[in-house]
């Protein structure tokens, strides 16, 4: 296979990955790394490098659209980014000392766990819960557009959500992913933020988290321009198409797509990691 053929095939895969990533709020990276390692035999360190850069593109491209529509909550995002960036630096450091097989196993487990959690029934946000004092102090509560006009929401359990965001950051730096699944989990299920606000704010935060990890990757030689080029240029238009679907799509369908993709890739990464084929 020549560089030209390789680039075209990777470009096609990246387009599909960007589309799925934006559609599910995961970011493209979660699909990119399995695609490159399992599909093209790329070393996992080059793969997570290209993936993390593409995650910045997906996140920033889609976030630009979401921000204007009024779904994302910049205050929630910025506050939680303290946890995710510290985590990303820790994770990127760990990526330098972990073996490729170990990274693949963690990757597989994270994907499976994300898929499992996404299919758990969520308790409906109830007004009976006491409002979170930290959320009030930081003025994190907001509203989002619905067909019936703006709907207000209250943010709960800020410390627990913040801690989970640190974990999301570590995974982002270690695996070269946006950790959209864990971010959405923290906001949607722990902090009880409405699903669309969670996914779009998550998408918005992913770029900053990924930039922290990417800086470390760049200086460690994980980011190869020849590999990252078709990935970035494929993910961008894919993500743009995917973000258009989100606004109109039904939430249940969104979750199902999200879970199936994540579970299948998780099983394969786990298997390859455990059998030492990566």
């Amino acid at each position, binding site marked *: 296979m020549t560089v030209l053929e390789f680039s075209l095939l990777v470009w096609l895969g990246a387009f599909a990955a960007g589309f799925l990533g934006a559609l599910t709020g995961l970011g493209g990276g979660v699909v990119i790394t399995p695609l490159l390692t399992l599909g093209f*035999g790329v*070393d996992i360190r080059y793969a997570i490098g290209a993936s993390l850069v593409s995650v910045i593109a997906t996140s920033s491209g889609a976030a630009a659209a979401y921000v204007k529509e009024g779904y994302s909550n910049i205050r929630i995002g910025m506050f939680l980014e303290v946890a995710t960036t510290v985590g990303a630096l820790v994770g990127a450091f760990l990526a330098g000392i972990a073996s490729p097989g170990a990274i693949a196993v963690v990757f597989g487990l994270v994907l499976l766990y994300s898929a499992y959690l996404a299919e758990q029934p969520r308790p409906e946000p109830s007004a009976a819960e006491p409002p979170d004092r930290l959320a009030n102090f930081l003025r994190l509560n907001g509203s989002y557009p619905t067909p019936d006009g703006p709907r207000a929401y209250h943010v709960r359990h800020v410390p627990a959500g913040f801690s989970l965001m640190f974990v999301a950051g570590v995974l982002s730096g270690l695996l070269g992913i946006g950790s959209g699944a864990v971010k959405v989990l923290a906001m949607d299920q722990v902090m009880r933020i409405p699903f669309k606000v969670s996914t779009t704010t998550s998408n918005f935060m992913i770029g900053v988290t990924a930039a922290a990890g990417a800086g470390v990757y760049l200086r460690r030689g994980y980011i190869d321009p020849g590999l990252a080029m078709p990935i970035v240029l494929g993910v961008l238009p894919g993500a743009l198409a995917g973000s258009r679907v989100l606004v109109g799509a039904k939430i249940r369908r969104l979750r199902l797509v999200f879970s199936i993709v994540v579970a299948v890739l998780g099983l394969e990464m786990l298997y390859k990691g455990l059998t030492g084929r990566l």
Partner: protein
Amino acid sequence: MTGERRPGWTDKRVEQVVGNLLRAGVGLAATVVLIGGLLYLVRHGASSPHYGVFEGEPASLQSLDGIARAALRGQSRGVIQLGLVLLILTPIARVAFSLFAFARASDWVFASVTAIVLALLVYSLLL
């Protein structure tokens, strides 16, 4: 907590500027990557890729000044890498702008939060 908020830098307006900033950064980065990528494919498209074995990038493609020099020499991989650096800088620029906006609005709690995030990002890139 936040003091007087000046009109003109409402959360809404900040969100719109942030949206434009992200779009411009990604657009510029993608254009540079595309130009470098076309050069790369024209010059090296017939060679074969070897990503199965990890060797790490040469030092000239790891540091910011090395990448800038490689790009200025017209090296296709250097031009792509420059575009990727612009991409990494985009969210960092967004955080820097948010810091400015929170400070303008005299929202010191959030200006501090944002300053911490910005410091971490700069540290990661210059390490």
